[in-house]
């Protein structure tokens, strides 16, 4: 029954999406489109709910449930397990697509009907493409061949609250860019002969996409940090890059949209960025799901899926980019920018973001290019990415500090200096304080801290002044970036690592802490057994700080081992402890990290998210009027 209904809803979705594609060309289309948009939303919601329901009641006659779930799994992870696998995650992707589809439709009125219907037509095509992909190569509603009493389990490393909401946030990001993509195509298609403020429609979608993508990436990092037990939070893995590239393009897009709004300039550029942001999201999906690159994210691989996504990407990209090539000259302008103006700074930042994105893209696909041409396998890792991206990001952050303070059109240099003097002073004071506190000096670290405080003081001063010329959301988001920079700088420059073998009752030191290995116990969890170390932490004055209890878990159902790092966090540092292999006679391998300022990365990301939400709601209000 479930199988039948699930397939029925999927099929109805497909029919509605194809019909949306065709009916949007007709006259008197409003009612047709309304039926399609609502039908699509309802059917995708029903099919998604149905899959969730099958997971909740552990219906192992559904192959997808049998392969990815188990009766002993906690309810929360049964539900989140729906998108923890390839097929289910596609269903979620489709649900998000149809929700965005619905919101685009909500903007429909008599003045913009051509623009919105054209946008919905492109959305219909994208939705149909993903639905076909799901039905043909990755159908979650398939029948289990023989009767099964229990499921095959679930990768325990994915049982983590951060990872549970990471995919939905990420998909809102990717799919939000699809709306911008469709609007860009619609704008190009309509030739600019209708005076529609397409950029005002595009902006809330881009803002939403960017905001949620930021949060999604941050949660992925949190997961890697807490769950993988490697002591770090970013590894330049292809999957991470796949989400980081659309983020960079999205950042550029978001800021250029403001220039379009205020100065009617950079239009062609924005149209291109909107196309690229979504294409990069799809290419990222291709790289990860086709198995063409190896990465820490393991999805079941199937070459036919790769071919399908590739054809689909070629279709979308070919159509939109050729359209851009032919039509974009309608959107050219001859406005010249003064360097010392808001739009000037935005343009510089745009260029820098694109360069970073191109650098990351090159690093990600370089092994593939080399393999295609000289048939050799190489890997590009952290050293490449760090040494190429950081020097480009540093000037971008400097400009980011000045940009918001500058006026539109042109600003006098003297005026600028007056405006930024308070933040220069504040930066100097705060930087001096932090170096007195940490007493550790190196060039990159110093630059990072100064830049971080530079951004923070600029935005705090503007927030306090309550100047109505500045968007509050922007100031909050920029403040978050400042905090993020502090966290990134601290944790990557001053991380200390100690790997040692410890017997029970012996101790080790890191930074100013003394860590005593007190005991080791066996414990039992709901669907795992574990050994748990108990470590007492004292500071240099022998004051008791905390107990750290890292675990090594064994999940019998899937036969996997995971390490649970134990972390003590405060505002200035994380103490991160991982238990390795060992026994009572020889002791255990213990990895200890002292990671300064990590918490500020997460706080920063949260504040950016808040800023994004504030901005989005303000922009939505603007359109309604």
């Amino acid at each position, binding site marked *: 029954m479930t199988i039948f209904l699930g397939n029925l809803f999927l099929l109805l979705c497909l029919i509605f999406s194809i019909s949306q594609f065709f009916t949007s060309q007709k006259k008197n289309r409003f009612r047709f489109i309304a039926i399609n948009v609502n039908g699509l939303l309802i059917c995708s919601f029903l099919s998604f709910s149905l899959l969730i329901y099958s997971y909740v009641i552990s219906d192992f006659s559904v192959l997808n449930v049998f392969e990815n779930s188990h009766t002993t799994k906690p309810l929360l992870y049964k539900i989140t397990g729906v998108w923890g696998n390839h097929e289910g995650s596609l269903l979620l992707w489709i649900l998000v697509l149809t929700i965005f589809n619905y919101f685009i439709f909500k903007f429909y009125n008599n003045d913009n009907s051509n623009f919105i219907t054209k946008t919905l037509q492109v959305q219909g095509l994208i939705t149909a493409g993903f639905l076909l992909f799901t039905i043909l190569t990755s159908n979650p509603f398939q029948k289990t061949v023989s009767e099964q009493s229990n499921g095959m389990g679930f990768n325990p490393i994915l049982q983590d609250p951060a990872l549970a909401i990471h995919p939905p946030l990420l998909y809102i990001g990717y799919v939000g860019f699809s709306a911008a993509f469709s609007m860009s195509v619609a704008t190009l298609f309509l030739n600019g002969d209708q005076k529609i403020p397409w950029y005002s429609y595009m902006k809330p979608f881009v803002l939403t996409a960017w905001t949620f993508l930021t949060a999604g990436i941050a949660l992925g990092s949190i997961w890697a940090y807490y769950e993988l037990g490697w002591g770090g939070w970013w590894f330049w893995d292809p999957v991470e890059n796949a989400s980081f590239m659309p983020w960079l393009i999205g950042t550029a897009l978001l800021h250029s949209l403001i220039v379009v709004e205020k100065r009617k300039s950079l239009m062609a550029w924005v149209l291109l960025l909107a196309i690229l942001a979504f294409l990069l999201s799809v290419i990222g999906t291709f790289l990860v799901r086709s198995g063409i690159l190896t990465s820490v994210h393991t999805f079941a691989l199937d070459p036919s899926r790769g071919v399908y996504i590739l054809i689909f990407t070629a279709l979308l990209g070919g159509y939109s980019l050729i359209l851009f090539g032919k039509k974009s000259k309608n959107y050219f302008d001859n406005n010249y920018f003064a360097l010392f103006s808001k739009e000037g700074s935005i343009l510089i930042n745009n260029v820098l973001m694109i360069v970073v994105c191109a650098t990351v893209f090159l690093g990600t696909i370089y092994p593939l290019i080399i*393999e295609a041409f000289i048939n050799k396998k190489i890997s590009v890792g952290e050293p490449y990415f760090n040494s190429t991206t950081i020097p480009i990001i540093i000037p971008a952050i400097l400009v980011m500090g000045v940009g918001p303070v500058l006026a539109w059109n042109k600003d006098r240099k003297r005026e600028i200096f007056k405006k930024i003097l308070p933040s220069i002073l504040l930066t100097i004071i705060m930087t001096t304080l932090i170096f007195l506190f940490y007493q550790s000096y190196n060039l990159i670290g110093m630059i990072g801290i100064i830049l971080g405080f530079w951004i923070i003081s600029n935005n705090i001063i503007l927030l306090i002044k309550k100047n109505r010329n500045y968007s509050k959301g922007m100031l909050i988001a920029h403040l978050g970036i400042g905090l993020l920079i502090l966290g990134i700088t601290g944790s990557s420059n001053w991380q200390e690592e100690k790997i040692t073998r410890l017997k029970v009752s012996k101790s080790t030191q890191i930074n100013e802490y003394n860590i005593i290995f007190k005991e080791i116990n066996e414990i039992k969890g709901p669907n795992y057994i574990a050994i748990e170390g108990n470590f007492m932490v004292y500071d240099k004055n022998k004051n008791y700080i905390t107990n750290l209890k890292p675990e090594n878990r064994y999940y019998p159902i899937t036969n996997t081992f995971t390490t649970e790092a134990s972390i003590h966090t405060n505002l200035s540092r994380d103490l991160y402890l991982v238990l390795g292999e060992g026994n009572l006679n020889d002791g255990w391998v213990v990895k200890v990290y002292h990671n300064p300022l990590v918490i500020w990365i997460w706080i920063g990301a949260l504040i950016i998210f808040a800023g994004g939400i504030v901005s989005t709601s303000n922009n939505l209000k603007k359109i309604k009027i």
Partner: protein
Amino acid sequence: MKNNILILPSIIFFLILSIFLYLLIIDRNPSEIPSNLLNKNTPIFEAKSLFKNEKFISANEFKDEIILVNFFATWCKPCRDEHVYIQRFADEKDLKIIGINYKDNNKKAIKWLEDLGNPYENVLIDKKGKIAIDWGVYGIPETFIINSNGIIMYRNVGPITNKIYKKINLIINKNE
């Protein structure tokens, strides 16, 4: 002039896609991960054997003939899938096959080999995964081919499929 530049994004786009397409359709295996051990001597180790009473000393064994080393475990589902190919190597080829039983239970391993057939000339016990670390094993299953000079010629991460089976056959024929 200006118009020509505008078509540039689509050209770059299609160039990149054609590289992807090429890599998708050629006979390629992303799990063939380059190993530092490739073209080098096998790591030196000693291990207990699952069936034999004598200790296995690698220095005495990896010489004079082609050897296939296969890391496997009873708890690993892909190992079960590739087992037919290991069996085929044992039946069809004149080569020594050594199994390394990774982080496993001895009783289960013996039962498993009784059920599925035992293609291995010798099965070594790697209860703590130490041998696997020396060999730089990524995950189970993993397979190595060693030539008669004790040098590692080939490595495959993941289960042996039909494609890889043919490839390994070619390598063995070349080295014979």
